């Protein structure tokens, strides 16, 4: 078993065990069942989604607050446009060339869909299709900044010791 897989299994075991602990809290029988459920889930998740680009967890902790702030800004922005009598919209499309792998691109798309004024609609070859609410707001730069952040979260090469 490779080091990357091993590391991913440890990460996933911790996460699934935490989730199970929450779900089964206050029920000792349920907690014992976790000894079967958690390893089985880890096995299934590695089988379905093999570890390739390990996430850098400590960078994720730095990224989360920015993501939360961005998604609040996204909601406020769209609410403002919806409520404004003049409804300021200038919708259009951006085609953003991407270097990211599949998984990272989906993660970027999901994140962009919650950020102000951007909505991913899959990709066309290596070009990410992004719908924007307001072409005047320079959305291209925001998209590229997000892409760089997502790229920094994963580690393309397997990590050293």
């Amino acid at each position: 078993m490779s080091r990357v897989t091993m590391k991913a299994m440890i990460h996933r075991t911790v996460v699934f065990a935490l989730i199970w602990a929450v779900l089964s809290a206050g029920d000792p029988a349920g907690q014992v069942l976790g000894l079967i459920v958690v390893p089985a889930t880890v096995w299934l998740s590695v089988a379905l989604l093999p570890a390739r680009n390990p996430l850098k967890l400590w960078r994720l902790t730095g990224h989360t607050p920015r993501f939360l702030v961005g998604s609040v800004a996204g909601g406020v922005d769209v609410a403002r446009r919806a409520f404004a009598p003049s409804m300021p919209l200038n919708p259009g499309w951006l085609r953003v060339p991407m270097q990211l792998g599949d998984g990272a691109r989906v993660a970027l798309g999901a994140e962009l869909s919650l950020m102000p004024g951007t909505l991913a609609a899959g990709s066309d070859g290596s070009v990410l299709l992004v719908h924007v609410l307001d072409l005047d707001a320079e959305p291209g730069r925001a998209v590229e900044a997000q892409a760089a952040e997502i790229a920094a979260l994963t580690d393309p090469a397997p990590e050293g010791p």
Partner: protein
Amino acid sequence: MPEGLADIATIVLTGIGLVFFLAGTVGLIRFPDVFSRLHALTKADNLGLGFIVLGAGFQADDWTQLAKLGLIWALALLAAGTVAQLVARAALRQEGRE
């Protein structure tokens, strides 16, 4: 936290949450094209749910309730981001076919 303060927090936060849900609905009704409407649904409704969950959190009696609320919100966020992409993609394909 004193009971009164927690109640005020819940009232304010759930109120804000409702405003965002309403914004999502207004956007869904008013916005001119399907993609813009998808923006409204995804972003506004999820922020609304975030505020409602946060407001509910101030009434929680123990950590498991808080943790479950957090799990609910994380799941909803993940689902919203993923589903928005898929629906946008489907809409795009439909448009392309016409």
